[in-house]
């Protein structure tokens, strides 16, 4: 057993429905496993609840938006008031109401870029390789099947034990996935 651990990524179970996946997540969590991940062709909030996932993306996006707003307003103020003051129809140089539109656009632009780039980066994408791509069954994870993987680097991991827990959740298939 011990000599296998470094090359083993985890034990993967396949389920036919979202219901079964959610039930399996709860059972595996209850058995004390921490390094567990579910895979599905569509987002499932119940799975996130069951596995206790949280994300700091929202606060990141807020910071992005704030940066955008400050950049937009600051850029316009610097250019129109200090660097290149132009007298346009006698309006004051610091005519801030006319800066609002671009400030708004920059806020949206920066937040949207933070949202997408942040999502990609926090998810560790792009990932050209993932051990689960070694599994032939895993191809169905993007179509109609639901998967649950107990990873081998879980402190409580024991191959026979993990297989037993997964087998008790009525999966279609349980298999070992190599690195």
């Amino acid at each position: 057993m011990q000599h296998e651990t470094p090359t083993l990524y985890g034990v993967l179970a396949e389920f036919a429905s979202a219901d079964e996946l959610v039930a399996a997540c709860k059972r595996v969590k209850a058995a004390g496993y921490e390094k567990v991940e579910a895979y599905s062709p569509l987002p499932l909030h119940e799975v996130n609840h069951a596995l206790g996932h949280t994300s700091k993306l929202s606060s990141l996006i807020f910071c992005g938006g704030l940066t955008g707003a400050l950049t937009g307003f600051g850029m316009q103020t610097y250019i129109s008031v200090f660097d290149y003051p132009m007298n346009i129809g006698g309006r004051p140089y610091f005519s801030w109401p006319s800066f609002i539109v671009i400030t708004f656009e920059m806020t949206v632009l920066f937040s949207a870029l933070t949202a997408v780039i942040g999502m990609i980066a926090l998810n560790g994408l792009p990932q050209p390789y993932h051990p689960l791509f070694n599994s032939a069954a895993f191809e169905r994870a993007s179509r109609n099947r639901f998967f649950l993987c107990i990873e081998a680097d879980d402190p409580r991991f024991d191959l026979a034990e993990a297989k037993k827990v997964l087998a008790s959740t009525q999966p279609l298939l349980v298999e070992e996935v190599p690195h």
Partner: protein
Amino acid sequence: MTVDSTSALHLDEPYARPVLVEGDRDIAAVTRRVCGVVEAPKPPKAWYVAITITSAMTVMLFGCVAYLIATGVGVWGNNSPAFWGWDIVNFVFWVGIAHAGTLISAILFLLRQKWRTSINRAAEAMTLFAVCCAGLYPSIHVGRIWVAYWLFPVPNQMQMWPNFRSPLLWDVFAVSTYATVSLLFWYMGLVPDLATLRDRATTKLRKGLYGFFALGWCGSARHWQRYERAYLILAALATPLVLSVHSVVSFDFAVSQVPGWHTTIFPPYFVAGAIFSGFGMVVTTMVPARELFGLKELVTLRHLENMNKVILATGSMVGLAYATEFFIAWYGGNPYERFVFLNRALGPYWWAYWLMVFCNVVAPQFLWVKKIRTNLWAMFVISIFVNIGMWLERFVIVVTSLTRDYLPTSWGYFAPTWVDICTFAGTFGLFLTLFLLFCRYLPMVAIAEVKTVLPAAHPHGGHGHKEGAHHG
């Protein structure tokens, strides 16, 4: 997208809702059906015919643009007093069409209108392609296109900065932000579906290409969670953005002092018109596309009917705006304003005005009748009227005001040249070519999102809600 969003609030439906996906309602079938279009060895014959015509038109567009760049903006009909002509009309027309995509993908998402899932991908793609056509016009209208970067606050050799008090500069920011955000939204939505195509690919080339753009997406719960969070916030950002873009476009007119332009009704009136024209274009393209690619079970008559209802509502708003403009022209007591509106209806461009009223105000009213609203031919014809009417609206606004402003000595009559006409036809070529390529090579329906509205996908364990509770 949200699967359990309604689980806390479970009410008995007052009436049975029609299903969102017809036929085989199982998630494997949805995958097969949508991917089948992309994976078919050959597209339908009509696709070849269509793309031959549209790519020829696109070549014509490039020819016209090259001729314009080589010669100058004088090849268009723009001349004193109408220095804005078809270029601005077409710019506003295409930006308007772009609005439906964002409305469907962002606003309807926030309003939890789950029927949007079958049409949002195609509508977002249309947004992107329409923005390409729109963006082309101002960039070639500047004349010396090689210095178009002067529009942006980029340090240049003249050591000058743009004027941030000008609505034209606001427009540069609004449209470029809109293009960027639309692209991000569309691409992010595509990632899980590209992964599906990657996993189903049978050739190395397809696996490589779809795999590259799928970024190694593996559908893990953690990924989905961040994805959904990003999607929700993007929708929340795109909603005020889409309203701001056409408002800013309307500022190009409203902030000036030209009679007929200088009105406060412009922002809401332009936004309603943009949604109206955008939905018109979505119906025009989706009716043939769903026939051609066999997606009738996913894009059902109910989807089309809902879009027709939006067309009816926004068309009526546009009609109300026309009436309000006339009322204010009379009630405001400004003689120039009053003249401009009388001139619109009775002056040299009376034909454009009344055709516009017929297309935008009268034609959509037929959609009150359910039989018409659910008839493919009828809705197709009405949507064409909407497209024509909304183009005429921009023509009427731009040209009647410019050719009849304060001084009768500077009055004129605008006539387009062949370059104007061919460039405009060419943008349709570009738009449709891109759309046809999209239909053939990318999933036209958001596969992962449609799966979320299927009853089979809903976990019922532990939440205690009834089987099949989420049909709508």
